[in-house]
């Protein structure tokens, strides 16, 4: 860096606005998402969690469901496992991944630095979430396509409900990831802080055991868990057969959880490391 290099690259001209490249939300999100995707590809652990874990978990779910009598739930083992797989993708790819991503960026002071620029706070969080969300949506599409093509599952009965369920699920789990990141000090401890959400969802939101097979009191509690409403919408959307009162209640639960989580992010998200 010498005076010559400054001259050769043109003296800085603050008044020169000849380039009309005004920053827009789309451009900013693309830039952040692209950087985050590069980071995801370079992080083997995160990539493994995002690509292989859902597959491993689907096999595990299926073998667990195989041993149950699903007659009461009104689903076949394949139906139950494929819909559970969508939930698993949401929990592992969106929640687990994003907690690590948010914590890593915060601890590296990247979030602090980004906040000095033109990007509004919600775009920083959304841009960081883009690759994980894109990956999760791709896997959901593959699961539905694969289920229909190779596993004799019918095409989704109510695609609108299926799409709504996945969409709300993505927003909800991304927001919950930001909340979880707030109580996570290091990337390593994210393995522990993400456990409650994972266990509660797998055990209580119908991923491993359909709610219909639970004792009634337990089921009514489990209906209120964050992911249960989303799962009900997904199953109603793909398999059909859920009455509209149940669908409405599920949608409401999911939306309330999303709203509360988004408020919690606003209130508690930490942009800088604790010192």
């Amino acid at each position, binding site marked *: 860096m010498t005076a010559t290099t*400054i001259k050769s690259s043109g003296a800085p001209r*603050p008044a020169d606005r000849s380039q009309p490249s005004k920053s827009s939300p789309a451009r900013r999100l693309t830039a952040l998402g692209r950087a985050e995707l590069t980071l995801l590809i370079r992080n083997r652990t995160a990539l493994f969690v995002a690509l292989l874990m859902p597959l491993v978990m689907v096999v595990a779910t299926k073998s667990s469901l195989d041993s149950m009598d699903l007659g009461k739930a009104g689903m076949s083992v394949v139906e139950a496992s494929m819909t559970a797989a969508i939930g698993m993708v949401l929990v592992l790819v969106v929640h687990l991944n994003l907690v690590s991503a948010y914590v890593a*960026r915060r601890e590296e002071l990247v979030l602090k630095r980004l906040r000095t620029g*033109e990007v509004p706070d919600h775009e920083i969080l959304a841009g960081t979430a883009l690759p994980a969300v894109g990956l999760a949506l791709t896997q959901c599409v593959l699961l539905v396509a694969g289920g229909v093509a190779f596993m004799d599952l019918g095409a989704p009965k109510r695609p609108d409900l299926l799409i709504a369920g996945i969409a709300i699920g993505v927003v909800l789990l991304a927001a919950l990831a930001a909340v979880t990141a707030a109580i996570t000090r290091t990337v390593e401890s994210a393995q522990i802080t993400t456990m409650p959400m994972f266990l509660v969802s797998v055990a209580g939101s119908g991923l491993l055991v359909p709610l219909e097979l639970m004792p009634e009191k337990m089921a009514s509690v489990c209906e209120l868990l964050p992911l249960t409403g989303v799962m009900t919408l997904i199953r109603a959307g793909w398999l059909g057969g859920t009455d509209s009162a149940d669908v409405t209640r599920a949608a409401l639960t999911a939306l309330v959880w999303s709203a509360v989580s988004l408020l919690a992010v606003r209130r508690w998200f930490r942009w800088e490391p604790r010192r």
Partner: protein
Amino acid sequence: MTTDQYVITANELRRSYAGGFEAVSGISFSVARGEIFALLGTNGAGKTSTVELLEGLAAPTAGRVRVLGHDPYRERPAVRPRIGVMLQEGGFPSDLTVAETARMWAGCTSGARPVPEALGLVGLAERAGVRVKQLSGGERRRLDLALALLGRPEVLFLDEPTTGLDAEGRRDTWDLVRALRDSGTTVLLTTHYLEEAESLADQLAIMHRGQIVTTGTPATVTASRPARIRFLLPDGVPAGRLPLGLHAGADGQRIEIRTHQLQESLEELLRWARESQIPLEGLDARSASLEEAFLEIAQTETAGA
């Protein structure tokens, strides 16, 4: 004071933290368009707390800030595209390369320079393909500066821009900051290097314990301070033999004279020494420097607190 003359104005700014600690205790200053303004102070003087208010990262507890005529905190979208910020401690994803980092930042910046141009400004062009985690501390500071310059800012905030740089890197950064100023950029920087403020700043303010204790040009701030002459008297020559007009202070044989007329005092001392045939060992005479002014202010304030 009009807004088109002053791009930054601070009025009775205060900033308290949750614990009740007041980091900024009612400071006022203005920065004119196209000048380099340095906030000078020891660690903990309140420089960074002040700059964060100007950058719009936090709202002041009391008082008023205007940057380019806007409230930098409440009117972020109006201010941010026109300013560039380099934090004292900012970070970049360690697994991205220098060029990838700059590209990400360019995508988030209105009217961004081409990435190679920005990296060229700070001499990082050859390091474009290197991962951020492999950069030295100084290179990371320069990358930070490159990003602050990406949007061709009208106002540049640099919080300790040369901390961690070697002598050459520091000088290069100074040259770059001067070049930016000469092309019309207003620069507000903080530093605890007195040399930096003295050589770079058009205006400066010395902060101490959350307050501004002195402001002015480096010349006016130092002009009010006495110059000093130091030397050792040979054994057996008591300080009392020195001419009375010199107002010498003695610590054993070690003498210090403080004077506002350096030339006259020196002349008188040297004439006396020749006439009395007394050698003055380690003779050292210097005009007031910012450092002296700064140390004196810090000491006085500490004693007064």
